[in-house]
């Protein structure tokens, strides 16, 4: 019998092993957890101003939600709201105002980004999962890291703090502007894309040459470019940890070869929520990820019906639900597609073979 815990309460101290915390989280009953978050979010006095404002438009009482699967009643979350509303309004008033902390962006490569406020508990939740991944992927504490990822408004950049604080790391950093890369691509400027990539690689090479770096944290795309340009520097690393752009089994295999005995960890997600990599299957099948349960759950749904979960192994669109105590975002329809993945050790679905969403003709009769 799983229980509804309080995953973001102070007992989650830095000193507690990530294995202990993750085991506790994975033991939580998702329906009970759902009821707790929904009731906190819609509490008439202490709930979220944003959600209380939407309550009148709902044709049901949120307090009647008793099961996680009933969250579809809220419909797809309107991401445009996160481009316009005050991010603090998503946070229940139970957290005393004024709020102090960071607002993070997601998206923004094609327009105004979505913005969400992360409470310290939310940051800690994310960090504990990342720490858990570091340990399980074989990254040793107390090593030197180079973090070459977007930073500034991008939560991925917070990884530098996570490595330093939770994994006793010494962290160097190179900043990359992923929005600029996407803009150059959109404007059809391939030479400038390569030029900017070279600019980043120059900085990475400089740090690698001078600073005795053990581990590199970057995107698969930038790591692939580094493997092409500086194979000897990659081979000298003890490992790489990759996230932020798509990666597949063939790339992961290439990276392990390039690392020449080094390790290669990965994760999938964005500012709303992440999923952990449990290793490449021995069969060589697609790379799978399991969400940072229970605050993050994922489903793979039909592209033409976001309410319908596809069969295990089948492909569809990734639907993500955020159930933090202080951030409720049900049914985010991601711009990714994946195969539905299940794992005996996880109380919810995961995703495999993740790649950008594409919706085009799918009738077999179109084959000829």
């Amino acid at each position, binding site marked *: 019998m799983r229980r509804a815990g309080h995953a973001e309460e102070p007992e989650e101290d830095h000193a507690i092993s990530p294995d202990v915390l993750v085991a506790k989280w994975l033991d939580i009953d998702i329906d009970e957890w759902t009821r707790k978050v929904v009731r906190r979010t819609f509490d008439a006095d202490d709930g979220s101003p944003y959600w209380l404002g939407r309550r009148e438009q709902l044709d049901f009482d949120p307090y009647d939600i008793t099961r996680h699967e009933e969250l579809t009643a809220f419909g797809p979350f309107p991401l445009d709201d996160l481009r316009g509303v005050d991010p603090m309004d998503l946070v229940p008033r139970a957290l005393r105002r004024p709020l102090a902390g960071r607002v993070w962006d997601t998206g923004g490569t094609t327009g105004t980004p979505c913005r969400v406020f992360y409470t310290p508990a939310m940051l800690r939740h994310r960090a504990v999962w990342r720490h858990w991944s570091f340990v399980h992927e074989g990254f040793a504490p107390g090593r030197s890291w180079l973090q070459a990822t977007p930073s500034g408004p991008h939560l991925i950049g917070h990884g530098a703090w996570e490595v330093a604080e939770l994994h006793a790391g010494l962290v160097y950093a190179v900043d990359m502007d992923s929005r600029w890369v996407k803009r150059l*691509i959109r404007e*059809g400027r391939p*030479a400038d894309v390569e030029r900017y990539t070279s600019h980043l690689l120059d900085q990475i090479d400089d740090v690698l040459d001078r600073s005795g770096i053990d581990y590199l944290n970057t995107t698969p795309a930038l790591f*692939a470019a580094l493997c*092409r340009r500086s194979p000897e520097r990659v081979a000298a690393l003890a490992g790489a940890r990759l996230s932020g752009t798509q990666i597949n089994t063939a790339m992961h295999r290439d990276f392990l070869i390039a690392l020449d005995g080094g390790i290669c960890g990965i994760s999938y997600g964005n500012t709303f929520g992440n999923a952990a990599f449990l290793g490449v299957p021995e069969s060589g099948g697609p790379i799978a990820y399991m969400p940072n349960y229970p605050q993050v759950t994922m489903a793979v749904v039909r592209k033409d019906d976001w309410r319908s979960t596809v069969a295990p192994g089948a*492909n569809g669109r990734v639907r993500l639900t955020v159930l933090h105590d202080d951030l409720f975002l049900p049914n985010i329809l991601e711009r990714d597609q994946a195969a539905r993945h299940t794992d005996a050790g996880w109380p919810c679905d995961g995703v495999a073979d993740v790649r950008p969403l594409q919706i*085009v003709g799918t009738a*077999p*009769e179109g*084959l000829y």
Partner: protein
Amino acid sequence: MSLGYLFGGGVGTEPHGIELYEASPLVRRLYEEIAGWTGLTAEQILRGELPEGRERRQSAGTVREAALAVAVHDLLAEAGLRPDVVGGLSLGAMTAGCLAGALDRRELFTMLARAADAPDPPPGAVDEGMALAFVRAGDEQSPPPWQDLPDVHLAGDFGPVADGSQRIVMLAGHRTAIEHLAAGAEPGAIVPLPGRTIAVHSPLRRPFRDFMAPWVAKIPFTAPRITLLSCLERAELRTADEVRDMFERNPTDPISLVDIYEGMLSRDVRLGLVMGPAIPEGILAFPFPVVHVETPEHIELAVSTAYDLGIELSEAGSGIRER
């Protein structure tokens, strides 16, 4: 780490590529150029009603499909992508040959336009048709139900579906024989293709092949400048004569998508771009990621995916990456 371009086969009646045409001066110039070679107007190529008459209709349809594929190729080149390996099915094989540099664009499109003059079947000729057959994975070694039917031919192999449960093959032959076969099979196992009235890639297409042979013989083929894979067998076409042979046999010989994508995989293709709408998304089990390109947004997605997967972008240009 290579980039592969896949060109589908088949000739649909639905207009495609309107968004690309309207968004891009490059595409509009290309269509004007093709109009000059084929005698069709750009509007006919893009979205006009296809003409009456079996072969005239088929010819105009091939011009439409090939024009879109070439347009997508050129837009990708403009955006910085150039294929290392190309291959296509049926008409797509010929388009791929052209874009690999084995014949110039004028030769390709005038040949497709020339096909309009092929004689239609005489009055009273047996109607032709096509079908897709869905073969369960466990049944692949068993004799298929059409094996001993003289009027039904295996015309193509699209390989396993995404979840591996079935394999899709294409049949061509006499329409009534195909419909009879479908009626006797499990529901959904054999699906006649509506509107497909020519039994392509089967012996029934011999008269068309003979009609086109003198024209194909005159085309000044050259050796492909990038890797060009055949759809008629597992092979790379390296010489002008090999490309000509593929063009000659294309109307009557069965095609295989598996031969193309396995050939691409063996040449380290890490991303396949499907040119135009001919191969539906998400149905087949490609051994590498694929992006389907048929709208302006897909051009950006293709470039972005190539960058993500570690494929080097090129200076905007002709689209041919010399080997």
